């Protein structure tokens, strides 16, 4: 009846291919190419090679990446959240339905709060990028867009799932905080959903870290412009580690089916 694994496979396949589309095609869309107020350049009427179109105006490319990944990650977070809810609620069919309804009630409000937190986090990532050596006085918009992109890829899904970490003293906040610490400081994931959150986040950070390496080379290529390589490194890292998480989850599933203990949580009906 339900095919949880195949639907997870479908979702990851969808997400990674859309992400690749975002990275390779979206910045080249004709609407964006018309925009002239960023980077202060006139639009070029003659045909550009795909690479030229992607690298000619880094700010625009980054902006397109951010917009694309933002909508994609919102959808992905929602998908994950429904998977998560399915996995945690138990009981009879009727109870489940009610519980689920209760949990998915204020989605819009939750989303607004997550977007608010996203802006704060992206500012934090911006400061980290500065500490890591991003220029202070120049290229601020470009650096911020990179910070935003990284935050969208890493922070948005877990924040939507668990809620952004809060610093209140009540026990719910404490548990939430420790979940965040366990996932993103200890990097330990206990179930497939957590793995689908942690692996891509780590992959994104490693990818963008490695992306820096290409910048100092004296090849004088337009794609070496800040911050294209860390941005694309982040996306490549995300895609690869998302697939790694999928593989690890599949192996887990096969193993658990062999030992017949737990099952991969169901995927909600579309």
């Amino acid at each position, binding site marked *: 009846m339900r095919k949880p694994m195949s639907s997870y496979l479908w979702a990851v396949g969808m997400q990674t291919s859309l992400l690749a589309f975002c990275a390779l095609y979206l910045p080249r869309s004709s609407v964006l190419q018309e925009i002239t107020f960023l980077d202060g350049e006139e639009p070029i009427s003659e045909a550009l090679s795909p690479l030229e179109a992607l690298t000619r105006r880094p700010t625009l490319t980054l902006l397109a990446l951010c917009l694309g990944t933002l909508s994609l990650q919102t959808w992905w977070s929602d998908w994950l959240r429904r998977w998560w809810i399915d996995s945690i609620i138990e009981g009879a069919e009727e109870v489940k339905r009610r519980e689920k309804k209760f949990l998915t009630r204020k989605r819009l409000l939750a989303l607004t709060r997550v977007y608010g937190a996203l802006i704060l986090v992206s500012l934090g990532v911006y400061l980290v990028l500065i*500490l890591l050596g991003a220029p202070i006085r120049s290229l601020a918009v470009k650096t911020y867009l990179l910070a935003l992109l990284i935050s969208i890829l890493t922070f948005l899904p877990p924040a939507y799932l668990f809620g952004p970490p809060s610093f209140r003293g009540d026990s719910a906040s404490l548990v939430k905080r420790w979940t965040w610490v366990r996932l993103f400081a200890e990097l330990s994931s206990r179930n497939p959903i957590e793995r689908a959150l942690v692996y891509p986040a780590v992959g994104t950070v490693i990818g963008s870290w490695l992306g*820096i390496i290409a910048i*100092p080379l004296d090849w004088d290529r337009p794609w070496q412009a800040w911050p294209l390589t860390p941005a694309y490194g982040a996306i490549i890292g995300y895609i690869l580690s998302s697939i790694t998480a999928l593989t690890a989850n599949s192996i887990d599933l096969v193993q658990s089916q062999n030992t017949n203990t737990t099952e991969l949580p169901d995927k909600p009906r579309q």
Partner: protein
Amino acid sequence: MAAAYRLVTITWIFLAHLAGIYIFTRGFLLMRLSLTDISSCGSNCILEPTHSRAVVLIIDALRFDFVSPNPPSPASPHHHNILTLPHKLTKRYPAHSFLFDSHADPPTTTLQRIKGLTTGSLPTFMDIGNNLGASSITEDSLMVQLQRAGKKAAFMGDDTWMSVFPDSFQPNMTYPYDSFNVEDLHTVDEAVITHIFPLLEDETKPFDFLIGHFLGVDHVGHRFGPDHPIMKDKLQQMNDVLERVVEKLDDDTLLVLLGDHGMDRSGDHGGDSILETSAALWIYSKGDPLTDIRMPIPQDLLKYRIFPGASVEHRAVQQIDLLPTLSLLLGLPIPFNNLGTVIPELFRRGDLLERALRYNAEQIQGFLSTYRASPSGGELDDSWDNLQKAWSAANTAAGFTDFNRQVLAACRTMWAQFNATLMGMGLVLFVVSLAASWALYVGLSSAKSNSKEWLQRNTPLYLMAGCGGGVAGFFFSLVAKLFPSILEGVATTDYIIFGLTFSSGLAIIYISPPIAGLPSISFSSILMILHAAAFLSNSFTVWEDSIIPFFAVSSIIPYVLKGFTAPTSRLQYRIVCFSVIFAICVRLMSISTVCREEQQSFCHVTFYASSSLTVPPTPAVVMAVPTALALPWIIKLYPSISLSDKGIARIYYPIILTPSILGGALYWILEWVDTISAFGDDWSPTIRIIRTWAARTSIGWALFAGGALWFAIPLCVNITVKQLNNKKQVQVIGYGNAFGSPYLIFWSIFLAIIYATTQAPGQLVLALGTVALLSYLEVVDSVRDVQSMTNAFATATPSAILNGPSRNAHISLTFSDTIPIALLAIHAFYTTGHQSTIPSIQWKTAFLLTPTVQYPWSAITVFLNSLGPLFLFALAVPLLALWNQSPQQHNPQDPAANVKNDVTLAAISMMTYYGTLLLGTSIGAAVLRRHLMVWKIFAPRFMAGALGVLAVDLGVLLGVAVGVNRILWYVQKVFKGMNVGEEAKKKH
């Protein structure tokens, strides 16, 4: 005794580095003493000039086969038989036109070739002389002789000439153009063409000597390689230019066309392959014939060689032969340092040939005697007798030529050849010493509390193996003498040094296989490997100063993550906050930079007011005094966290460190005042006296007063004895950091000294670096606390944590704990206004202690300024092991056993890091010795790497031998037998 073994271990690594550097450098770095004598001999060494003027055209990278009448077969359609004018004219006028295959001495780079062409000497990496920093030459040269004869020189083309001869050309006839833009194929050539013809056509004959240096062929080679249609167009253009020049030439002007070097198959150059060293040389006299074809010429004066792939041999000369030839043809004396021999064909008239060769040989003998009498004369030991025999035998043309060539060969072996055997031996030693230091680390860290026994057992073993290797090396050298051709230039001492180091290193590796430690490679170790691998790329080497802060901040990330997982919020807060302080300090430090030449257009100089004005920027001067006042206070804050700012710390920080740091700041403020002459020049001598004494007092006060105080009482605790219930209660405040706090005082003595040798912006950097260092120590300490709490929670009796540190609870130092400090050290080196280039040495600091250059003080201060940051942070490495560690109460025999082992581990880790960098730089330099940029990028980075590892080794050695040993001895003496169990206060 154990302490001695630990020192032996560290000293062994130091000596192994030294041995490797010595042997590698002997094979790699070519040095020569440049003599400043000028040839002047009235009429006894000059000939009647045949031409009063000369036009020298240089086509950069014009390989011989580009102009050869018999190019290799199959001939390339893109570069053969295109520039045909030289061989056409040679065929038509054999008495006027001469075409040679000339051998350019490697390194075949333009700067070195220009020096070679004008001085007639062999190029080396460094000409030791008075002008170490500048590339301009003070030696006798063609340009000097032209000037002395009152001849006017014109110049157009490659601006490298301007850096070598900044004021030898007539300003109104000088047209230099940027040579760095390899992408630009035409600008320089077009400019030369634009400027040369008006000068040639000018009836007033404004110049006597003209140099035109074309760059297009070289740039096409670099960018497209020689087999590209653009090369054909370029050579065609050159041929057209030559035709026009020959047409405009008057009869009294000699035309010389040459390539300064060749190019390899892919169009690059710099190395010593035949394609790179074979350059074209064409000499053409439009007026009188230079050679009398009927006159006989001894055949053994003429050498021939076959260009690779060609079928016919061609007349071959040395490129430096042009210099004596040109000098005598123009009626000038041959420059003093020349080693070339006049080209016989051009003096084949009457008795000219023998006279020319006699003057030439006399000049070379004069040079040889002067060099022999110089401090570097010992280099000639091996060849001197044979050369003098040849000199006394020389009295014919053939004899003189023979003598000249023997001298050239002797000098070449002396200066201008990479010795692959020695380089290979050096590399082997680098690898062995690195593997051995890692093996020592693994052995000591796995021996843990038995490390004392481990050292006692193994140290004699590897030392004996070393002695055995030394003896074997000696015997091998005797055997090697039988095969001189294979192992040329390797001396007996090289074999012995190699044998000693190699076999003791192997013994260490055998005793403790380093493979065992490989699984512990962490993220930070990957940073180290990436850092060392970066030296295989010119871009990464050039941008190393930007990569390091990126790595340094990255290296703190694992600690931050650890901090989030800390079980108490206090530890969380401490770890995260101190990590952030570390990162902020590192980031602020990286604002300060002196850009190196290759970084231009992407880099903005902030260390000086501007790239052409080497005074400190005003904000740095304004902040100098506040920083100097704040720094000792901030340093003292850190031990005060553990209440260990007691004892001598109360006297030391306010009375010794503060005035000393302030004195250092004052010196550079006054230096700035002097450079902007704020009070006018009258005050200059007074200011000079004040600042000399400010520096002397600053350094003297820190070293002698601080050193004496520290040496007398290296302890920062308060001990109070109370009588309580008939029991004596001893309260020790500051016990928790009993080792770390006094070591910090020891360290800050050297901080003060190096602070004074550092220019104002660098002082801010050092202050930030100090804060970063101390914050990092707190981070490591807190993470260690987290670790021991986690360990305690994992045991059956978590409450054991309340019992204080026990034997098993000791958390040992890890290798990656040293890496942030290693990165901080090299970061401090770059941000205190240095680069891995020779011109970035801050010569200003030579005048710190004395108003004029005085040895050894000037040399010492320059060294302290350049290598001080590395030394300083290496000296700080024992702090990692000492910071917030209290003497162990349960082990009254040796309360510092754990600390001792950790100190050794930290020291070895630091040396391993820099040993890895040394290996990286030396492999980069050795593998890329044919690279275009070897003398600009890789060789200087190797030198910086070699000096850096030695500075680090010495820092570590001094720290362990003096700092740690003295403190441990004293602490042991004070606390031995004192029951401090319950009363000890350790403030967390």
